[in-house]
């Protein structure tokens, strides 16, 4: 690990201002992804700003009937919150499908959104990676690469890594918004569509946050009526990333929302696919996966996604 200086920030605005001002600064909260990457020297911050003391630890009701989740609320606390369990079941389900008990106690809401979109070649510093070293090439797209876990849609010729968060898939289905504060002290509210950025030619850039801009929380709109479900398919029954995951909110009248994890560089949802839900899983996936460009090894994910949604719908 490279050496770094360390400070504790007392407020979100102070943290953002310092992050813009100090060269090589990064925020740290739970640190479960950042420290792991620092040990591999894939992340090499010169300065860490500890943002856990910035007063963002609460889950509070909004005037619109929703919830505001502070950026430092742990994944365990959020999953166990009574209001979330009762009215946003898809979010509780997605959270407890992710990581391990130890990691969920440490990982924060803001940090979960900001964990790196990644693949095994991103972690292997002996292999080329456009995300790690822009312009170096992509080992995952090389001959003989192992790609069965990697992305099938939203990917590019530069990168086919997936965003591993389960939480973010549920947030996408819930139309959650990300709240931020800029180094100038201004606040922004972003949909996940506006927050996450597809890799294109710059897979090293994963979101639209400006330099120093800090996530302060996530806002859930008023609850959506219907059945909330999250089905994660993985290589072992616990503590593994999704090959495919499906977040489903299904209203009694047959309408609803579908978001996918494990398929793309960000949680994946399309309005046209939601509109096709009354016609069944095949109709949804025809819209949701239109334009997919899988490798030979991961084309199975297209079939698996459809069958996973079909399995969820068959439970009703």
């Amino acid at each position, binding site marked *: 690990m490279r050496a770094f200086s360390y400070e504790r920030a007392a407020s979100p605005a102070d943290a953002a201002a310092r992050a813009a001002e100090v060269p090589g600064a990064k925020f740290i909260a739970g*640190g479960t992804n950042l420290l792991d990457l620092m040990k591999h020297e894939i992340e090499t911050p010169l300065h860490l700003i500890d943002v856990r003391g910035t007063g963002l630890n609460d889950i509070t009701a909004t005037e619109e009937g929703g919830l505001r989740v502070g950026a430092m609320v742990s994944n365990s606390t959020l999953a166990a919150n009574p209001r979330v*369990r009762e009215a946003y079941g898809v979010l509780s389900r997605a959270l407890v499908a992710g990581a*391990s*008990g130890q990691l969920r106690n*440490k990982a924060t809401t803001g940090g979960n959104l900001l964990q790196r979109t990644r693949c095994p070649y991103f972690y292997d510093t002996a292999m080329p990676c456009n995300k790690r070293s822009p312009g170096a090439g992509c080992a995952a797209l090389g001959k003989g690469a192992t790609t069965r876990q990697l992305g099938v849609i939203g990917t590019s010729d530069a990168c086919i890594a997936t965003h591993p968060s389960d939480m973010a898939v549920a947030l996408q289905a819930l139309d959650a918004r990300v709240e931020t504060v800029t180094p100038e002290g201004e606040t922004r509210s972003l949909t996940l569509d506006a927050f996450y950025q597809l890799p294109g030619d710059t897979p090293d850039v994963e979101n639209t946050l400006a330099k120093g801009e800090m996530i302060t929380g996530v806002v859930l709109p008023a609850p959506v009526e219907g059945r909330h479900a999250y089905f994660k398919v993985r290589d072992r029954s616990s503590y593994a990333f999704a090959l495919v995951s499906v977040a489903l909110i299904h209203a009694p009248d047959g309408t609803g929302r579908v978001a996918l994890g494990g398929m793309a560089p960000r949680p994946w949802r399309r309005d046209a696919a939601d509109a096709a839900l009354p016609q069944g899983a095949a109709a949804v996936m025809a819209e949701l996966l239109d334009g997919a460009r899988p490798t030979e090894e991961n084309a199975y994910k297209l079939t698996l996604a459809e069958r996973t949604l079909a399995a969820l719908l068959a439970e009703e």
Partner: protein
Amino acid sequence: MNAPNSAEQRRDQAPQDVPRSTVTLIVNGTQHTLTLDNRTTLLDTLREHLALTGSKKGCDHGQCGACTVSVNGERINACLTLAVMHEGDEITTIEGVGTVEHLDPMQQAFVANDAFQCGYCTPGQICSANAVLQEIAANIPSHVTADLTATIEITDAEIRERMSGNLCRCGAYANILKAITQVAKERA
């Protein structure tokens, strides 16, 4: 040159011109004030600076759970957190769970049920196991909890799922499950 083979040597040979911070930790009830290279993980602090070598370094990347300790009542991976981020925190390691003369009920149950072979993962397993029973008692849901709004019952599936962050390469899982179940029943 051989790599330094003691904590003292490693500390002596470590570069001194790196950013350091002073932090106060309360470990197993004893307060320690330390000035550390900012890079020092909580795990390395316990093992190399406080000579508490019960917490083990397996993978050092949060994947194996051998370093599991309790911080302010919650289990975490000590390898994936910096000591300087724990100012004033109360940390309980396996040394604070029980002693050879006075084993914790979970330690006693691991012995009675032959719940380990080489023993390397055992401190982490025991710290995690005690936390698992607390988490179920606090009605915190897991991936296998059928009804998010009902009271959670202690089942084999619940224990297995909640222990998935602790690997055992000897494969003592069946007896680890028996040990935890025994303690759960004793407490019921």
